[in-house]
């Protein structure tokens, strides 16, 4: 694609210099806002701990951190029920935690311990937590998109008002299965929310080198799927748009696609920034995006609106740190799966 024909359709949404101001929280209830904030904090702190475990050589499983993107999972999951069925991809710690999954279970899984959410058989990329509505994540890019379509089909057949949700990245929109899945969802009028975390990168490559436009919701336009493109670093906007699409899906009005524009502070995999390998990934962009941090924007709004005090926020932070520190040490003390698991888990029937 000739560079001069490329254009940003996202405009300001992809510009780290924009949307830095505190969120507009007028009319919002403080307890609810604090729940969102705590959830984002928990994800951030868990992922920072994961980064530390990788650096220390204790976590060997490939860890794809979503630091900086917390508002997407938290905003969407705030509108979900545990009877809904959520599926993720390789970068799914955030969704698992936002649904209420246990930090200990996640950390134990990342350390390969049998106490982990996938009994030590999955690692960071294969998470499971059906009790909170998280029905699985896998690293094959795009793979859970049709699986979520099947879960939506099941919900429709059940006659229940639960919905399915597929989380994926902008890179996954380049897989053919995404188009097949949008088409199935719309022709069968399925209760599903497709959530694209558009962080403008797929591994090392900027979306400019991969697609003719940076707005991935255009695929939903083509399939006549209801869609919204929003600032993914504004948890309230994400939540509001998710609610609109989820309500429609629950009411039998078919699928929706939410494109949340965001950025990851860390690289594709592991704790580094990927400035050295990222094509178009510059330190100044990373620094600039940090000023658009979803956690900071909500915290500042709460302080500015005098909804909470510095001390209260500090306490929340300390709480989260203590909770996560305890989860880490408990996870480290876990056991590895028994060797029999290798063969015993292959088939359900024998």
């Amino acid at each position: 694609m000739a560079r001069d024909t490329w254009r940003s359709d996202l405009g300001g949404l992809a510009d780290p210099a924009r949307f830095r101001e505190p969120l507009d929280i007028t009319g919002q209830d403080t307890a609810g806002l604090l729940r969102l904030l705590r959830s984002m904090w928990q994800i951030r702190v868990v992922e920072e701990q994961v980064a530390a475990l990788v650096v220390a050589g204790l976590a060997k499983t490939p860890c794809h951190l979503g630091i900086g993107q917390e508002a997407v999972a938290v905003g969407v999951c705030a509108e979900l029920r545990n009877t809904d069925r959520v599926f993720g991809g390789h970068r799914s710690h955030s969704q698992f935690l936002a649904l209420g999954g246990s930090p200990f279970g996640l950390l134990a899984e990342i350390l390969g311990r049998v106490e982990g959410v996938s009994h030590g058989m999955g690692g960071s990329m294969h998470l499971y937590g059906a009790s909170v509505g998280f029905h699985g994540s896998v690293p094959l890019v795009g793979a859970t998109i049709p699986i979520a379509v099947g879960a939506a089909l099941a919900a429709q057949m059940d006659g229940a008002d639960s919905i399915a949700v597929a989380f994926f990245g902008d890179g996954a929109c380049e897989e053919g299965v995404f188009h097949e899945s949008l088409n199935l969802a719309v022709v069968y009028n399925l209760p599903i929310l497709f959530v694209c975390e558009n962080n403008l990168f797929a591994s090392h490559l900027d979306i400019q080198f991969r697609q003719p436009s940076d707005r991935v919701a255009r695929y939903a336009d083509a399939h006549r799927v209801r869609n919204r493109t929003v600032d993914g670093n504004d948890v309230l906007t994400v939540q509001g748009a998710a609610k609109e699409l989820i309500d429609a899906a629950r009411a039998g009005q078919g699928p929706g696609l939410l494109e949340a524009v965001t950025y990851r502070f860390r690289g594709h995999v592991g704790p580094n920034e990927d400035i050295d390998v990222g094509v178009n990934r510059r330190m100044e962009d990373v620094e600039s995006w940090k000023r658009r941090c979803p956690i900071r924007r909500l915290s500042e709004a709460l302080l500015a609106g005098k909804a909470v005090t510095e001390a209260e926020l500090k306490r929340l932070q300390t709480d989260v740190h203590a909770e996560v520190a305890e989860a880490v040490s408990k996870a480290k003390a876990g056991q590895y799966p028994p060797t029999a698991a290798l063969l015993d888990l292959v088939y359900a029937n024998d």
Partner: protein
Amino acid sequence: MTRPVGYGEAIREAFVYLLDRYPRVFAIGQGLWSPWYVGNTMTDLDKQFGKNRIIDTPVSELACTGAAVGASLCGYRPIVIHPRMDFMVLAADQVINQAAKWRHMLGGQVSPAVTIRAIINRGGEQGAQHSQALHSWFAHVPGLRVVMPASVQDARDLLISSVLCDDPVMYIDDRWLYDREAVLPPIVERPLAAEGPKVVREGSDLTLVGAGHSTYLCEQAAELLAAGGVSAEVVDVRVLSPLDAQQIIRSVGKTGRLFAVDGGWRTAGWSAEILAAVTEAVDPAKLRSRPVRIALADAPAPTSKALESIYYPTAATIVDAVRATLGRQEAHVKASA
């Protein structure tokens, strides 16, 4: 029931049985409302059970297979149907990486109980992309069960067992068997895990092993051989994976001769697996001749009728291979006498 039913009809009976008794069973795939695609195996099922349970889909093998996997994770028993096994290559991710792996990698907490029905059709100058038998590929993947019915009864009963099994199963039926007929006993549900290779014809001079249509060829070959005074035992593998080779090993232990017949390619094919499983287990002193593979040449299926006629093994091909081996032995015995 005393009326003979065809293999294709028997598949339809299995669908009726399942759809009638199990409200969480549904079928999804291309061509389910059309006899062009699936022959007589699903005639009017959509009229009988509704288009919501017999879903004819867009041309989307991958997403439809994924949707079936997803529905199975939510307690349904979907049967996703691929009217040509060739087209299933597009669905490989969902079969190999997803259905077969979810249980193991999620610590046994979830089992995609999806049935993937793959239909083999070939010949008739359809060419390389409408003729493939890819069972060897899928039998290589742990976590997936691979079933190939050869008999009319198995066409019905193994489909029922597959759908009721908690694991992902690939059920491979073959258009070349649809006209086989048999009078069937009433349906008895049997767990798939208890099913495996079966001796379908007793014999003492040699063992012919086949699966699906190859078993049918073996049975025909055994008939021809019997006319010439050679007694062939036929083992129908039925369940290619997980493979329980005991029955085959026992048979070869008895006859001392193994001929593995396969409708797939020779190299890295399933016939090689049968040879390996047997030769690893049977005392070489008991082998009266070298094991033989009768499989497709390593070439894509041709389109020309002239080439098709040499490409596909027939009962005569098997008989010739057997005679060649026995003949060589006789000559050897004569020469050393």
